[in-house]
């Protein structure tokens, strides 16, 4: 439990003094704030004023009945958890109370343990309800902002390109500078490429909305896959003055997965390790097999990821910008896609990082298990 949070308030409404006293004593000892009232009218005033998380109400009271209290409390706040106390003779009423919105009931007589258990269950339920309510509000907001956000992401490179071309057109011809023109054309090409990548990644994601990226589950040895990717980035790494290294065990690192997805996954991690590195830095891929899992670590000696950004790292379109980060050309979708691929293959991806010193992405994937009726037993003889 969060110790910094204020204690939850519980309102007890019961006409019996002994019951109010007992409930107050037991619940106070649980660290809860308890206020007890002797009838429904007073109790409802108390609920409106105290905004409790949970209300314990006796069903059989003179004046406003317990059932009516439940209805009126929920008019004040439908999220308040209602627990009813009832004698054995009124089980039917208890059922009715549950139907009208009570969360749980306590038949009299009950032990302190029973009270504690039911109150804790009720409070857990409330926390969950509040969390999911918050989640829903956030999701709705996010969805609304998302369309705006995606169009902004797509338009940004397009705007930059258009602006270059339009300014070129409007610049005084006598002041034309061929070197500048060449530089601008190069920038336009770079931004076009960025737009292409963005659309490719975006489509990849859109296509799998609700579906899966991973289409096949076959035996794939990761060593040649990753070696191939490393080889294809030799030139880029050299340009960035980053050295590439792979550390493999002698045995094959076979996982069960989709070859093209695995390529996308390690391509993303390796290009990040090169792009977000420092001149003279290293990008190292290490593989191992143990406990039915293949673990691949992609480590760089680059700029690192400040702690406050780590929770968002795998979110769609998340990119770290600002001081110390020279690149803004990523699509912000690479890690999101990577995480999706890993999860679909039943694995996990984690990041460790020290800002200024580098990051290590650790991927764990279930190792390939040869099917029992594998006919290809020749090599075993």
């Amino acid at each position, binding site marked *: 439990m969060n110790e910094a949070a204020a204690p939850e308030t519980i309102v007890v409404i019961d006409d019996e003094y002994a019951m109010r006293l007992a409930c107050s004593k037991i619940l106070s000892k649980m660290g809860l704030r308890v206020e007890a009232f002797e009838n429904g009218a007073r109790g409802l005033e108390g609920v409106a004023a105290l905004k409790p998380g949970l209300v314990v109400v006796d069903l059989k009271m003179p004046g406003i009945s317990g059932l009516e209290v439940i209805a009126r409390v929920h008019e004040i706040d439908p999220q308040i958890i209602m627990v009813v106390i009832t004698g054995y003779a009124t089980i039917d009423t208890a059922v009715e109370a549950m139907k009208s919105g009570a969360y749980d009931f306590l038949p009299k007589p009950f032990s302190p343990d029973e009270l504690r258990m039911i109150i804790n269950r009720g409070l857990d339920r409330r926390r969950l309800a509040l969390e999911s309510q918050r989640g829903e509000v956030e999701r709705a907001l996010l969805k609304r902002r998302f369309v705006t956000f995606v*169009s902004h992401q797509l338009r940004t490179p397009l*705007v930059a390109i258009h*602006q*270059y071309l339009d300014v070129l057109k*409007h610049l005084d011809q006598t002041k034309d500078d061929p070197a500048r023109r060449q530089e601008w054309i190069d920038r336009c090409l770079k931004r076009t490429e960025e737009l292409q990548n963005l659309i490719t990644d975006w489509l990849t994601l859109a296509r799998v909305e609700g579906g899966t990226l991973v289409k096949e589950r076959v035996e794939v040895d990761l060593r040649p896959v990753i070696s191939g990717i490393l080889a294809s980035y030799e030139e880029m790494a050299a340009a960035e003055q980053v050295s590439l290294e792979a550390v493999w065990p002698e045995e094959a690192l076979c996982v069960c997965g989709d070859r093209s997805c695995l390529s996308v996954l390690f391509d993303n991690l390796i290009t990040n390790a090169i792009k977000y590195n420092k001149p003279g830095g290293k990008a190292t891929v290490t593989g191992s097999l143990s406990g039915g899992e293949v673990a691949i670590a992609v480590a760089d000696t680059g700029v690192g990821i400040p702690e406050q950004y780590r929770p968002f790292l795998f979110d769609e379109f998340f990119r770290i*910008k600002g001081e110390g980060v020279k690149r803004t050309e990523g699509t912000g979708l690479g890690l999101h896609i990577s995480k999706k691929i890993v999860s679909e293959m039943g694995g996990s991806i984690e990041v460790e990082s020290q800002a200024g010193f580098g990051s290590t992405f650790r991927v764990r994937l279930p190792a390939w298990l040869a099917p029992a009726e594998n006919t290809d037993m020749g090599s075993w003889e």
Partner: protein
Amino acid sequence: MSAKVLLIDDDRDFRISVRSLLETRGYEVFEAASGHEGLSQVLQHKPDVILLDVMMETSVEGYGVTHALKYREEYAEHRQIPIFMVSSIEESPDERFPMSAEVEMIRPDGYLTKPLDIPRFLELLEKTVAGPRRAP
């Protein structure tokens, strides 16, 4: 003396092209890649016009900059600098901050759409800097 324009935008390419355009028209141009940088440039260079990107991914977004410039005490002497907010999407602050009091507070001097319509943009700038000189 040439008029000073401050470009606050996180897209370097956008700053490069607009800067060249303005320089050939005789403006002195300052650049900032983030809201924070923009605010310190205001104090340092005292621009005549500010061109401000609405959606930046750094900590102080466009509206934050406008708000700071119009209402924070340390920028009091720069309060009159015209601010034009630039965005590639038509998003007025009314959509972003549905509370009218807040919207009133952060209303800039104008909105421009990216990519800029160059002839209209230049005309607007000319009119703005030629306008009545602000009180010292």
